[in-house]
């Protein structure tokens, strides 16, 4: 039994892990406090945009970070959720919260179809099929009358939550968006830290071994795919309510690329990574929007620096290895 390495953690390591645990407890509380007072410092629409994309990136990370599946078609679920929500709120006159439920379920149904087809392949082929199917959905949206094509689906007044609370008030809207995003984040957190989530991690680590233990890995992957699609749809629906608009931008392939960038910049397979990544991304995008220099070039440079310097993303690199759920 002469294996000197990899024994139980020695003293300093334990302390390091404990303090990392304290930090991990403190960070969500600080973030929550910041989110509660943020609209008094920042332009609320900007913060709400950030919250929507944070939820979108977290939903995407559920698939990439915890299941090991790289989808390049998540714009279909985000944009689809936006269209479904906007349509039922505008045409059917549903209240905002019901609109979000329709957007979420619609994106889940779309995820079930796209996932069932794309999961028949793996690796780069899976990624390419998700892109192809998302592009088909994009062209459907371009042609279908209910999306109003290039004009987008414009919403009227924001309506009343549960028929009572006026979302036309900026603060009401902000706290509604914050509550929905927190619920979505909680669902993701619960999902990845559940018995089901443990099986997903085992599939991510070694798919063949999971099969040999009797797991139908396709079914588990599809479950994660549908959950990720549903929460992306929720983020999209929320974005449509905030901006009173669902457009082709939301379903275009660039949106699929942006969510990959946000997640990679922040750190895949970490809870906070997608939130930080989307914050950096949205802040850069907003600040650079007025510059003469092309935004995409700066974003590209930022992305390359992140990939070269922070291999595991901003959050992944700042955590000790023991406490960060890392992708192998």
């Amino acid at each position: 039994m002469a294996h000197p390495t990899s024994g139980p953690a020695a003293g300093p390591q334990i302390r390091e892990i404990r303090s990392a645990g304290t930090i991990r407890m403190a960070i969500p509380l600080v973030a929550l406090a910041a989110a509660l007072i943020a609209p008094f410092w920042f332009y609320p629409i900007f913060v709400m945009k950030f919250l929507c994309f944070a939820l979108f990136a977290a939903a995407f990370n559920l698939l990439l970070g915890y299941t090991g599946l790289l989808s390049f078609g998540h714009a279909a679920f985000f944009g689809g959720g936006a269209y479904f929500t906007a349509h039922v709120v505008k045409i059917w006159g549903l209240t905002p919260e019901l609109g979000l439920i329709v957007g979420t379920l619609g994106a889940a149904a779309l995820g079930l179809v796209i996932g069932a087809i794309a999961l028949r392949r793996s690796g780069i082929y899976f990624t390419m099929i998700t892109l192809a199917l998302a592009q088909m959905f994009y062209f459907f949206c371009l042609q279908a009358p209910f999306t109003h094509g290039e004009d987008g689906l414009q919403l009227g007044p924001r309506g009343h939550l549960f028929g009572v609370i006026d979302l036309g008030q900026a603060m009401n809207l902000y706290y509604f968006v914050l509550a929905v995003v927190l619920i979505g984040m909680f669902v993701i957190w619960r999902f990845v830290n559940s018995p089901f989530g443990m099986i997903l991690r085992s599939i991510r680590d070694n798919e063949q071994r999971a099969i040999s233990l009797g797991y139908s890995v396709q079914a588990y992957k599809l479950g994660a795919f549908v959950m990720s699609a549903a929460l992306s749809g929720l983020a999209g629906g929320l974005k449509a309510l905030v901006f009173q608009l669902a457009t082709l931008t939301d379903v275009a392939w660039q949106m699929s690329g942006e969510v990959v960038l946000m997640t990679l910049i922040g750190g895949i397979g970490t809870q906070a990574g997608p939130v930080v990544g989307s914050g950096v991304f949205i802040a850069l995008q907003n600040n650079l929007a007025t510059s003469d220099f092309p935004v995409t070039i700066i974003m590209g440079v930022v992305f390359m620096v992140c990939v070269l310097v922070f291999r595991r993303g901003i959050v992944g690199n700042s955590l000790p290895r023991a406490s960060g759920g890392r992708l192998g």
Partner: protein
Amino acid sequence: MSASPVMAQPAPSDQAGAPVVLTARGLGRDFHGFTAVSNVDLDVRHAQIHALIGPNGAGKTTVFNLLTKFLQPTRGQIELLGTDITRMKPEAVARMGLVRSFQISAVFPNLTVLENVRVALQRPDNLATQFWLPMGVLDRLNDHADSFIDRLGLAEYRDTRAGDLSYGRKRVLEIATTLALDPKVLLLDEPMAGMGQEDVQMVAAIIRDVARERAVLMVEHNLSVVADICDHVTVLQRGEILAQGDYDTVAADPRVRTAYMGTED
């Protein structure tokens, strides 16, 4: 459609006693015109250790992949516990009790040793699909998982990331995880490769112990281990069976001696 046609002709070297649990007849597999395995007949019996040996490239791992359905056979038929499994999916075969280990150490590197073993227990204990429950419910499986961890001498590594274990420890962990499924037929692909001598002895003792209540089919290069613990030996060469029988019979076979060209001691 099950029993009779496959079971009709017994394999060449017949051993009395224990019932046959896993049968292959005329098993073959081609890869783009290259025949990796052909005409393999195997009878794996309950409570016996069956060794599959042969020079490198003889097709031992391919036979494993065919039996566990990770590869679809081009020809032949496989029967497990009286059921034809020739067209089944690998996970369904695993659920029937035919569980394999891998040549490369197959662990979940980012999970701890305890979590690795628990993953094996989650499905049989119906704690695999709940996405709404906290991870803490899995602690219910800890005692059961610990019994395998202790048995294989991994107790002090219980909370270590599997990826940080030494190569030999990973192999031991893989065996612990495989045993946790309580398989009826255990297929071990070079279980002792890369282990130190004392671990080889420990694992050999464990294999002998678990084979009291299940069939074991193992690929192994360490011929002293094969001589020591195996009841029956099948020698493969270039994808075909060269000889079958107990170790002494096989070792005395001149064709086997030629195939090994002095590497056999």
